[in-house]
């Protein structure tokens, strides 16, 4: 087990290094320039001032030098300063991450709460009307893009009832009521897609388990259907669901940007997008680093949790 974990941790470090390198190179070779983004729209572009700024930000050094300098900073816990705001990038990330994390966690939780029973019911009633209905809903959830659902969620109440969820984000520990008023609709919008994925995975997994011999044996022994389903089938069907939960949580943290923008919530996704637009390299690199840490970490935890759900799983 320890050897397995150490191996995974080493792989995680290598993955992380590759991600940072790719992000660094992609940012530098992408069209546009940090200095142009910063002063390009000033009334009079001054080349001398531009060069001064380039030197001040360390952008006049060679790319390997810039990368090594950044990596050295990371190893000492210094992720650099945002080109745009002149604040430490970690300060901005820590301010904006809670919104994205909260929305991602709640939307995944809500999706699991809805999708697990729905998937079980669909599988248990395979090809009958409850299954058909649930499948239609799930397909619709997958087919309609989140930005369409989100936009409808904000535009329709505004037009019909002059109501919108409050813009912005207040931490739950500062104002829990306002926090809920701000995020419940974005969470619903995000869940519309996630719940559809969960339903399909749960249903497929349950159908596979229902075809297993031990389920047939349990039924032939005359056990009640509820016992067959909930005591024998569900637990074994959970492994792929747990696996997809981790992946979806990680993907949602990084991909919540559309929802954040539609609902005007300042989260990690919109911070990254704004930093990209401003060519704020330091901020993008910090965000990418920590999103990668989150994704790799969640994957690792997911893999390790298999052992808890299924005692047959052993790590070598």
């Amino acid at each position, binding site marked *: 087990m320890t050897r397995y974990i150490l191996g995974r941790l080493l792989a995680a470090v290598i993955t992380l290094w590759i991600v940072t390198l790719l992000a660094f190179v992609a940012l530098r070779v992408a069209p546009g320039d940090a200095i142009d983004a910063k002063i390009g729209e000033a009334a009079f572009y001054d080349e001398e001032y531009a060069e001064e700024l380039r030197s001040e930000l360390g952008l006049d050094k060679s790319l390997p030098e810039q990368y090594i300098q950044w990596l050295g900073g990371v190893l000492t816990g210094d992720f650099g300063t945002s080109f745009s705001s002149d604040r430490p990038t970690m300060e901005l990330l820590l301010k904006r991450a809670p919104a994205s994390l909260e929305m991602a966690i709640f939307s995944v939780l809500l999706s699991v709460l809805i999708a697990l029973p729905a998937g079980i019911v669909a599988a248990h009633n395979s090809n009958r009307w409850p299954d058909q209905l649930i499948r239609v809903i799930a397909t619709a959830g997958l087919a309609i893009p989140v930005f369409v659902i989100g936009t409808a969620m904000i535009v329709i109440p505004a037009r019909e009832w002059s109501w919108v969820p409050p*813009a912005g984000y207040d931490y739950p520990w500062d104002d829990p009521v306002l926090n809920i008023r701000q995020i419940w609709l974005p969470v619903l919008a995000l869940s519309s897609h996630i719940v559809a994925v969960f339903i399909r995975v749960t249903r497929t997994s349950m159908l596979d388990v229902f075809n297993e011999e031990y389920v047939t044996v349990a039924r032939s022994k005359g056990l009640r259907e509820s016992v067959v389903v909930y005591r024998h089938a569900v637990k074994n069907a959970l492994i792929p669901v747990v696996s997809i939960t981790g992946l979806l949580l990680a993907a949602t943290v990084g991909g919540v940007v559309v929802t954040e923008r539609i609902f005007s919530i300042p989260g990690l996704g919109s911070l990254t997008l704004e930093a990209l637009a401003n060519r704020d390299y330091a901020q993008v690199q910090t965000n990418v680093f920590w999103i990668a840490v989150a994704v790799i970490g969640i994957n690792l935890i997911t893999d390790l949790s298999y052992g808890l759900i299924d005692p047959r799983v052993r790590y070598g």
Partner: protein
Amino acid sequence: MEEKNYWQKRISRRRLLKYSGLAATGAGAAYIVGCGDDDDDDGGEATTPAASGTATAAATPTPAASEIKRGGTMKVFSPGAASLDPIIDPSGGQRFMLSAVYGTLLDYRADTFGDTEIVPGHAEEWEYADPTTLTLKLDPRITWSDEDPMNGRPFTAEDIAWNVDYKKTTSEATTWDIVESVDVVDDNTVTLHLSAPFAPFLSSLPGGVAGFLYPREVIERDGDMKNTAIGTGPMMLDSFEPTSLIRLKARPDYWKDGEDGDALPYLDGLEDTAVVEYQTRVARLQAGEFDQWYSQAGPNKIDAEALADAGMDVEETPFLNAKVLWMNMLDPIFEDERVRKAIHLLIDRQQIIDTVYDGAGYKTAWLDLPGWGWDDATVAAALERNVEDAVAMLSAAGVSDLSLELVGYTGAAAGSDPDVDAVIQQNLDDGGITVNLAIQPDYTTVLENYAKPGTFQIYVQHSGSGGDPDDFFRRRYLSTQSDTNNWARIKDTDLDALIEAQAQEVDPEARQEKVIAVQDYLYEKMYSAPTSAPLIFKPRWPRLHMSAQHFSSRAVRIDEAWLDSDA
């Protein structure tokens, strides 16, 4: 075939001031679509900076004291700002908010959107003793906000002298380099000595980034104003979250009194939340979460009508920022004047207005500023389409099977517009010119990959007018300007001389003639072809009482704004 001399014929009809013509036709005059107060008093009046002025020049109408209500927070939205220092982050959406924090020596009159009449700000009086000597007399009541390290100390002439020196070290240096020396006459009097006569200097003092008066002690302590804002205006910074939220609160020690005899401002606070998505902006405004849509590019016509139906006052105003087709003079094909003029003749401005702006647009020449441009009739005649003559010109130039790449970008509506590019592609095709569209993701990409290196062929981008015609001429056409600004690489010494002549003419009326002369020359040479501009819609809930604002967020009278909670 004899070439018709359009250029001589059309230049003869001009001189009337452009927006007086627009006001008469209603095409570009500001008017209210929805219900509510009356802001359309003198939208067409032509105005130019006066050589001198006093406090009596301020003619902003004021409400009766009994009507005014105190309290409340005015809420607006913007794209968000990464920093609070507009000198360092000029593309940010923070200027409107900061105009409530920082004072300026002079202001634009704010009765009407786009008004360019200069009125007193922190300077009660100003006077040119000669074309290079400008004396300003300050309001003796002005104090800095009572925050560390300013601690409410008086604002003096020394602050102006320091601001001139400081701005010369920043990206705003081009505005202030003209000031050779500053004489502090006494605490409330300062004389600026210019190195040469420069009429636009007065226009750079009201509002905007160049005109904001910064606090010396803060710059000396922090180096910049990225994360703080302390000024002499009616508001002080409450909180700031980069690209997310700016919250201001009323200064309890503000030095100016309101109509009711108590200290201004009437509002308790001002809040700017970043809202990026267009539909979200419309929805939040319609739901009443925000008080007005202040940024330059407002809602489209359909949404503006929906907002008016919901009870908002919607002011319709000219964009004041013409979209211009730039031809890269580094490309040999454009060396022949006939090719440039043929392209100009092929553009169907009316089609752009009808199809892209849904009828809510207007024809404009290069300079889209009230009081400075051509009159309406001249614009209409000069921008008339004539495919037959265009084809003849191309033929006379020996050009056939011409293929051009048109660069544009998506994103901000204020700059490039792929829909306009598509119409131009179609228009030029009518004259046998094949246009390949190269639409880029954003302005920075175009700037870096096409404009700066001079690799584009044609590029449609707004003119970027500031508050003074010189901003536009100098930035886009002067030979000595950097490639980033003069992206079409126009090198014409005669044009340079005309630009400098209008800049050095401090007599307003004489200058106006010289500004027209520059435009006449631009028409003669056709280095760039004006296309059109959209009308823009500025919705505001009737509960908000505030005079109009200048189009570039200058002259915002936050101190006199108030909210009627019963409305």
